[in-house]
């Protein structure tokens, strides 16, 4: 479990809390970079788009949905890493989860927020977005619960609420620890954050139960969220969207890219917060195995999709298929297959699974692959619908590219802020994994 010898309880507190209290110039420069990238690449283009209209993006008659939506799916997908993973592992109480789940849940939260941003960017009249929420207003407007987009609204708000509660409650004891380790304003703040947590048996007991229930709620939620996202597409008759396989397809993809995302984040935590002691081979190895499994499932579903399309045999489906495999965006498709279906097979070799650097590369490749997968789904189906006379193609504009880049900066910014406010590794759960001290020891 621990590559560098077992730490004492005190070490745990020291190591982890110190990363919050001691902030070096490296952190500030990093934060500065991410913030400015987010501002320049995401918000400035977005405001420009608000002024001129969504036409600033490359979407057109043939594809009214574009990269904004594919990015939205991607980020929602990424969000499945944390909550789902941590919840599942919590219930199956697999010990190796304990070191990584906190940051995994943070990922969930922040990628969800980023995804929400993309909905805003996508909308034609974002200044009326509140109409899509069931908020009573003077105009008597009320959303249409028959619309798949309303499913989305409900699902995502629920998911956002649930996962933030999940992560917060999990951190309460650690907030108490930070409180005790700090002074002045910070102390007062964390007194509030921790609800005056003392760590009595009763508190632990209640938290344990509540936490388990959160987990129980969150798992089906996470599954439903991405199924619903997939239904935005599958509920239409558009060839290439209209597949029953879509829900599992999306969910698998989501967990897949999410898990890959965790590997990436783990790597960074290890590097920049020196958590080598807590995040070790065992985590990497288990994540690697999980990734292989997921990649195989994902590949299988992909093949299924192609098959059922081909088996459908209508002119519509076949056209969509051939366009995907050989059309304008075919190179992207094959790139996706390479990164998400073939590259992960390398992890069958322990040598690779055990090397942090190699795993980092693979995990990033997987997410690049997943990003393109989302894009392909959106961009190859719409321009090949039912009337050949309306066939066309769609190329993202530089604004879309820039906003895509910016979204990663937003995510990074949120994460950087997170590691300074919440212990990136759960103190008490790590302690649980330590052998308790004995007098005779």
């Amino acid at each position, binding site marked *: 479990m621990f590559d560098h010898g077992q730490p004492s309880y005190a070490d745990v507190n020291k190591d982890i809390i110190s990363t919050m209290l001691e902030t070096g110039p490296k952190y500030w420069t990093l934060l500065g970079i991410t913030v400015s990238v987010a501002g320049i690449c995401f918000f400035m283009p977005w405001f420009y788009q608000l002024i001129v209209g969504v036409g600033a993006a490359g979407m*057109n008659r043939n594809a009214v949905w574009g990269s904004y939506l594919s990015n939205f799916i991607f980020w929602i997908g990424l969000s499945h890493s944390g909550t789902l993973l941590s919840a599942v592992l919590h219930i199956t109480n697999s010990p190796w989860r304990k070191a990584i789940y906190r940051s995994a849940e943070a990922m969930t939260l922040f990628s969800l927020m980023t995804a929400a941003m993309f909905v805003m960017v996508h909308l*034609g*009249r974002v200044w009326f977005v509140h109409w*899509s929420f069931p908020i009573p207003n003077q105009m008597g407007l009320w959303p249409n619960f028959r619309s798949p987009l309303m499913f989305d609204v409900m699902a995502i708000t629920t998911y956002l609420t649930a996962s933030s509660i999940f992560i917060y409650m999990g951190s309460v004891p650690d907030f108490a620890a930070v409180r005790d380790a700090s002074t002045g304003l910070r102390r007062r703040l964390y007194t509030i954050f921790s609800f005056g947590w003392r760590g009595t048996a009763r508190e632990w007991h209640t938290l344990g139960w509540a936490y388990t229930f959160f987990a129980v709620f969150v798992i089906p939620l996470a599954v439903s969220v991405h199924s619903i996202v997939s239904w935005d597409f599958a*509920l239409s008759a558009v060839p290439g969207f209209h597949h029953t396989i879509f829900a599992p397809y999306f969910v698998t993809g989501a967990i897949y890219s999410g898990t890959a995302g965790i590997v990436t984040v783990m790597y960074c935590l290890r590097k920049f917060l020196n958590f080598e002691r807590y995040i070790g081979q065992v985590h990497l190895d288990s994540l690697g195995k999980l990734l292989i499994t997921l990649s195989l499932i994902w590949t299988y579903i992909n093949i299924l999709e192609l098959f059922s399309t081909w088996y459908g045999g209508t002119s519509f489906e076949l056209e969509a298929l051939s366009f995907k495999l050989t059309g304008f965006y075919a190179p992207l498709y094959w790139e996706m297959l390479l990164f998400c279906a073939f590259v992960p097979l390398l992890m069958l070799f322990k040598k690779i699974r055990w090397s942090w650097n190699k795993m980092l590369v693979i995990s990033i490749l997987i997410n690049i692959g997943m990003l393109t997968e989302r894009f392909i789904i959106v961009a190859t189906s719409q321009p090949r*619908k039912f*009337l050949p006379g309306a066939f066309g193609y769609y190329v993202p504009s530089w604004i879309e590219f820039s906003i895509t880049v910016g979204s990663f900066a937003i995510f990074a910014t949120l994460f950087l802020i997170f590691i300074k406010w919440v212990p990136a590794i759960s103190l008490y759960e790590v302690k649980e994994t330590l052998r308790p001290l004995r007098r005779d020891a």
Partner: protein
Amino acid sequence: MSTIVEKLRQYSKPGYYDKFDYHWTMTIDLDRCTGCEACVVACQAENNLPIVGEERFAENREIKWIRIERYWEGEYPDIKMGFIPMLCQQCDDAPCETACPVYATYHNQDGLNTQIYNRCIGTRTCAVYCPYEVRYFNWFTYTWDEPLEQQLNPDVTVREKGVMEKCTFCIQRIRIAKDNAKDDNRRRVRDGEVVPACVQSCPTEALVFGNSNDPEAKVSKMMKSPRGYKVLEELHTTPSIVYLTKVQS
């Protein structure tokens, strides 16, 4: 109580809960249609469609509520051209309607598939779901070179950026006709009393418009033609537009 129950029962059945006075319907006779596109300009004039400019066309962002699609058959010298006017089919089971999260598009009393511009938030889902690709999105707020704006039809709104728009069967004309009918105490508009701009202009009288709830209406008779068919019928959108195939001699 019983009435409530029975209302609930009624409401949980698919289809429309009320027999409409009208069901506006159009027939398009492809044997008459010559693809001259008079209808396209008529629509542009009547419904304040923007002049989008060359770049927008290059970007495939033109707005034409009715367009002519053309399909070749065969190769030179035995080659034939088939024209088909494509406009909103005013489907009874419209895929676009269920898609809208804010009820910006819904089915009105006349069996029309209406788009409420000021309710639209621009998710564009309806356009994705529409198999006929007849919904057009305002990617920008378009302007008219002075004094071209003096031509704008005061009965029709100018749409702003970020909203979806589409053929309305010239609902403003229908409304005027209804008002007139009301004024001289007729329950219904007479057949032929109101036609959309495209139908009005069609030089070959290929387009026929009317209320198919009225069996005497010309359109009801046209619909019975053995040449009649609906585009993409297999998707079961039950369009309100019936096409009559071109006769191949």
